[in-house]
């Protein structure tokens, strides 16, 4: 399938969760407490998209599936999209647009406070995701976009701090996040040791 078609397909598939949400809302399938259901639903999908985005490069290196690489930017932008929906849903449905109490809420609830740097970083990554920005930022672009790892950790702590009756969600998201960050850490260690080996050879030659 040509890349352009794949792009169209991935775009619409990524909108399926939102379509499901609209369908549930329109047919009263969001349960008795729909506000909370919406906040949870879009928040969960933001995390899923974050994990999908983070699995693009491992799927290329480990499973030799490179076809997702050209779509990584879109998947990342959908992460931002669902994260923004999560934030807006929180403002509308949980805070009831009572922004006078938002400051106090931020100070008192660490799990809400830590979403601020996460969402700011996601917005910055979204804005700098264009080809023009890649060219402009050069090497720094890669460095900047590595902050997605920090966003993943913040998102996981956000889930962990809300554990009440079950660790199931925190463990699920924790294991997936750990695996995707862990494999990168492993590659980084490998690369570092390779450099050391080369450097060591250099030294021995000089002596």
């Amino acid at each position, binding site marked *: 399938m040509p890349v352009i078609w794949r792009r169209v397909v991935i775009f619409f598939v990524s909108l399926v969760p939102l379509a499901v949400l609209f369908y549930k809302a329109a047919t009263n399938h969001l349960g008795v*407490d*729909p506000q909370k259901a919406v906040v949870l639903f879009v928040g969960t999908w933001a995390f899923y998209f974050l994990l999908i985005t983070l699995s693009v490069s491992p799927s290329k290196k480990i499973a030799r599936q490179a076809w997702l690489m050209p779509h990584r930017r879109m998947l990342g932008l959908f992460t931002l999209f669902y994260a923004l929906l999560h934030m807006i849903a929180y403002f509308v449905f949980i805070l009831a647009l009572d922004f006078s109490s938002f400051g106090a809420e931020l100070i008192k*609830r660490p799990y809400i406070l830590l979403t601020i740097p996460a969402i700011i970083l996601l917005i910055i990554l979204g804005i700098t995701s264009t080809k023009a920005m890649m060219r402009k930022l050069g090497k720094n672009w890669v460095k900047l976009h590595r902050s997605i790892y920090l966003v993943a950790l913040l998102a996981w702590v956000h889930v962990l*701090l809300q554990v009440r009756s079950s660790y199931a969600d925190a463990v699920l998201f924790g294991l997936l996040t750990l695996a995707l960050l862990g494999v990168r850490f492993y590659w980084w260690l490998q690369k570092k040791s390779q450099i050391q080996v080369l450097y060591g050879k250099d030294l021995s030659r000089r002596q």
Partner: protein
Amino acid sequence: MITKNSPDISPSEITPEHIYRARRDFMRGTLATGLLSSATFHSRDLLADPSYTAAEANNKGPEWLNQQLAHAKADTQKLTEALTPYDSVTGHNNFYEFGYDKTDPAKKSQNFKPHPWQVEIAGEVGKPGKYNLEDLLKGIDLEERVYRLRCVEAWSMVIPWVGFSLASLLKRFEPASKAKYVSFVTLKDTKQFPEQKSVLSTIDWPYREGLRIDEAMHPLTILAVGLYGKALPNQNGAPLRLVVPWKYGFKSIKSIVKIELTERQPKTTWNQIAASEYGFYANVNPAVDHPRWTQARERRLPSGLFNPNIIATQMFNGYADQVANLYKDMDLKKYY
């Protein structure tokens, strides 16, 4: 019976205001004319309320209980807030023994067997022992109590329980003067409660709750055996659950198998999990936040998506007139 958990709650299913108002007017009328004792569920069947109809269709209580429920006295309180419809009361539950999603209890409690049932009365009482629920309820007059239920998670409902005062039961077992607290324990049975096997649960099963003796003896404190005029559905804590309307919902322990009167304050489940978040008292208090969310407001369910029913939470859940004196010299920020 299959308590089908239908999430479809159309506005038409919510008890229309004119019906519940008529019901209240009707009950007040019976009160005014001195016919109170005869105002039972039989006489109220005249009023077509879809929630009562749904409760009747889903009822699977044993015959002896149905008999007693049919003669329950109507509520004479003046709570005029709309009742939460049957589908919401039975479709949105925290009953972690069945699962962690609000819809799990309705889906996964269908094979639960609340009858026959035994309750152990233990501790500082004159007549300890294990009793059949049927025997425990013999001679007890059931009554309907329409109470607000405020969950610690900031949602709330208005529920017509059928039950009896805990005090009337406890007195029959001759509490000793040493009895300062009452502790309650839920059934532990991993076959019937699948989540009691879960390794990811934060809860140390079985679920436990407790009250101070004066709270337990308070006339508002009831043990419920019914809902909307019929036997309590499994997901709501069949066959016997506590209801303490001025405290957060988690105090209202479900499927009780043991009631023990103790000299010392008993351990309670949520307090053991996170003492900084869930106190022993757990009185509804808008001025004391849960560390992770405000308790100043609540979502009165069922809530529409774009007409959120967010209301201010009342001190002691609106029962301050009756219960504030129980805590008059206590710092409620310290004893939350």
